[in-house]
């Protein structure tokens, strides 16, 4: 497919779409699917057919629109006047109704009300802050398009950015555009994406000994890190499920920019739906000539394979991830050399997180300046968060960098349920920290979060109310890290076990002041001596809860295990 064909496909899709008066979107993300949403879609379709309205309305299975706590969600988009025209912008003439907690048996009522008043008992307002306070870039297609149809993605402007990069820009211009946009890695550490791309683009594929398997014709690689593993995080899953082509397009642009011809998506096997949709997307893109050899009629070739992770948290660490792709044991190795110089099979390798790559097409289409105008001075664009815990609205949100925690928790999140008080919010999962109420008005950006002892992380955001036992929170995350430690380096392997043991002792009322001291020494040592990010960040939940909620620890301490003076001089 070249640019003309791409445009033709987009136009014919939009025309076909304009012919229907009603577009019914049923969320088939993992959460809604688990609540039987595919049955809802079938029931709606059957109902349309029975009523002879199939020509007038269509049912579409879409990705996650975000408000998971109200799922299964069904959105009905209807044309306001009866005329089918194609000249005016479509959105202007449409209105939407959102239905919550839909069951298959509600189908008849929903269809019956298509032309009349909405079904009041199911309706939830679309003008609530949860929706109005968000800024959607990465998630703009999620909940709007059918992730299993490439035509839907193309109709929404998909693959235009890739064609623009391939036909109008040099690889260096692409790197420059990303650099100027200020985009930073969304996997957690916030490394400047353009800098990484530039390093891989410049890297010499022959600098290190390589052993690329036969059949792979690439000496540089692009890897999409979809090994999302933080407890309570589902941003990348929703993206892969809801808009898989967006990720492929981002990867292809990245590959063009750095000079790679092969890419891998590393995704955990616990995400079967994401894997299925990515596989479908790859197949469709290949068939459309948007992946493979000679993309869009240019000389550029790029193939993508999927590699399934077996669910080890450490495989989200880039060197462990590469070891896993190579077929080895998923354990990290010391850096340098960094993957950008010596990565997969010894070749220069670009590893970006799912969300990072999903930001790429709009930056190419709308320009670096547009992107850089969103967010704060050092943190540009938006961030997707998985909002969970003791908050009214749980689900997936996308907000501009620099928004305050208070806006996220109380406006978008709807506050704390059950009349309880807000106590803290954990960002960055087991690698992050717990932020207390005093910082609610702090802007959410990489630097501010780090300053208060947490991290941006990949986007998990767990809200806690005043009933939460903070020592238990620390113990929970330490148990996670202990269980997920790969065992290669001693501080992480054995240190997490001892820290967990002390935290358990504190919970059982068997710990002394001396144990807290040993715990703090261990936190310091494990943080500074561990081989990879897993161990280096494992103490963070303990450090931050000790910093802000030390009284909760002290209350559980059983006496003072102190020596008396023994009268010896040194």
């Amino acid at each position, binding site marked *: 497919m070249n640019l003309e064909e791409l445009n033709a496909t987009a136009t014919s899709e939009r025309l076909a779409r304009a012919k229907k008066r009603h577009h019914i979107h049923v969320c088939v993300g993992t959460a809604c699917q688990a609540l039987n949403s595919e049955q809802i879609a079938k029931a709606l379709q059957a109902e349309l057919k029975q009523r002879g309205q199939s020509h007038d309305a269509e049912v579409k299975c879409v990705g996650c629109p975000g408000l998971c706590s109200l799922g299964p969600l069904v959105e009905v988009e209807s044309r306001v006047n009866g005329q089918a025209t194609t000249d005016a912008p479509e959105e202007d003439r449409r209105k939407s109704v959102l239905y919550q907690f839909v069951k298959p048996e509600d189908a008849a009522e929903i269809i019956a009300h298509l032309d009349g008043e909405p079904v009041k008992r199911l309706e939830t307002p679309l003008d609530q802050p949860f929706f109005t306070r968000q800024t959607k870039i990465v998630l703009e297609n999620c909940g709007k398009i059918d992730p299993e149809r490439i035509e839907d993605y193309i109709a929404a402007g998909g693959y235009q950015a890739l064609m623009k990069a391939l036909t109008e820009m040099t690889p260096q211009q692409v790197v420059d555009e990303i650099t100027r946009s200020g985009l930073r890695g969304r996997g957690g550490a916030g490394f400047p994406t353009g800098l990484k791309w530039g390093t891989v683009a410049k890297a010499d594929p022959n600098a290190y000994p390589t052993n690329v398997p036969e059949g792979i014709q690439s000496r540089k690689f692009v890897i999409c890190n979809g090994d999302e593993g933080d407890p309570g995080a589902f941003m990348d899953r929703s993206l892969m499920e809801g808009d898989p082509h967006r990720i492929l397009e981002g990867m292809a642009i990245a590959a063009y920019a750095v000079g790679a011809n092969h890419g891998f998506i590393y995704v955990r096997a616990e995400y079967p739906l994401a894997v299925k949709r990515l596989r479908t997307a790859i197949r469709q893109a290949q068939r459309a000539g948007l992946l493979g050899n000679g993309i869009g009629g240019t000389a550029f070739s790029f193939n993508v394979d999927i590699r399934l992770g077996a669910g080890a948290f450490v495989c989200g660490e880039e060197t462990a991830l590469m070891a896993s792709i190579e077929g080895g044991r998923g354990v990290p190795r010391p850096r340098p050399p960094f993957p950008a110089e010596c990565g997969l099979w010894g070749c220069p390798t670009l590893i970006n997180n799912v969300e990072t790559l999903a930001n790429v097409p709009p930056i190419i289409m709308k320009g670096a300046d547009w992107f850089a105008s969103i967010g704060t001075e050092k943190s540009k664009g938006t961030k997707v968060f998985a909002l969970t815990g003791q908050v009214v609205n749980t689900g997936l949100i996308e907000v501009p960098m620099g928004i305050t925690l208070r806006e996220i928790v109380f406006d978008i999140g709807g506050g704390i349920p059950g009349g309880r008080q807000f106590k803290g919010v954990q960002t960055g999962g087991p690698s992050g920290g717990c932020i207390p109420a005093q910082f609610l008005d702090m802007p959410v950006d990489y630097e501010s979060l780090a300053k208060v002892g947490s991290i941006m992380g990949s986007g998990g955001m767990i809200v806690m109310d005043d009933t939460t036992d903070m020592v238990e929170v620390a113990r929970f995350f330490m148990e996670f890290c202990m269980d997920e430690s790969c065992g290669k380096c*001693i501080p992480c392997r054995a240190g997490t076990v001892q820290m967990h043991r002390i935290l358990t002792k504190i919970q059982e009322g068997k710990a002394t002041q001396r144990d807290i001291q040993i715990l703090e020494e261990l936190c310091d040592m494990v943080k500074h001596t561990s081989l990879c990010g897993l161990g280096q960040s494992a103490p963070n939940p303990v450090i931050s809860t000790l910093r802000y909620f030390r009284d909760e620890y002290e209350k559980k301490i059983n006496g003072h295990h102190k020596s008396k003076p023994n009268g010896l001089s040194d």
Partner: protein
Amino acid sequence: MPRTLTINGQEISARSDQTILEAAREANIHIPTLCHLDGLTDVGACRMCLVEVSGSSKLLPACTTRVQEGMEVRTETERLRAYRRQIIELLFAERNHVCAVCVANGNCELQDAAIAVGMDHVRYDYLFPKLGLDLSHERFGMDHNRCILCTRCVRACDQLEGAHTIDVMGRGARSLIIHDMNVPWGEATTCTSCGKCVMACPTGALFKQGSTVAEMVRDADKLAFLRAARDRKVWNV
């Protein structure tokens, strides 16, 4: 290309392809190690050789970090000493290291490390895991109680013997050295019984059958000799 750097204030020169550890050793500056063994590739796992380098906010493993011009390295700060002692204590608490009944008593790198870091006691709880002993091989034995998971045996078997009989199973504290696909050592068909793993082991985890307390003698130097002989055709040491 020669590089000039300082280690603990002492000015030394090294080749650009040398690691801090190699440069330090040539200058007779001792940096403690456990997972390093001459003749095997380095993995940076034990963290005993971490050093402070001016300008780096992170501690760097001397075994895998190349020297650089003007580098200022410190190997014996109070902080590093405290960390090393903690690491050794963690190892002693992790499995069942009973020097008094060990074949390697008096000839053990872990025991030596405990002395070097001044470990007069272990402040962590001993975990006392229940671990097995594999005596199925006719000449050698493996006692997991004494294993510190340094993977020197894994690397010796893979890189010097080319058999790759040995690897690691499981993760975290449940990691375990295994033979083939976790079969008793005596049934591992890929094992050539060369004994290089036994030479490589820093503790009494791998031993020759028939040796009792403190009888173990080891030939770790032979591995470096083999590597030098193969790579550089140097046959006289």
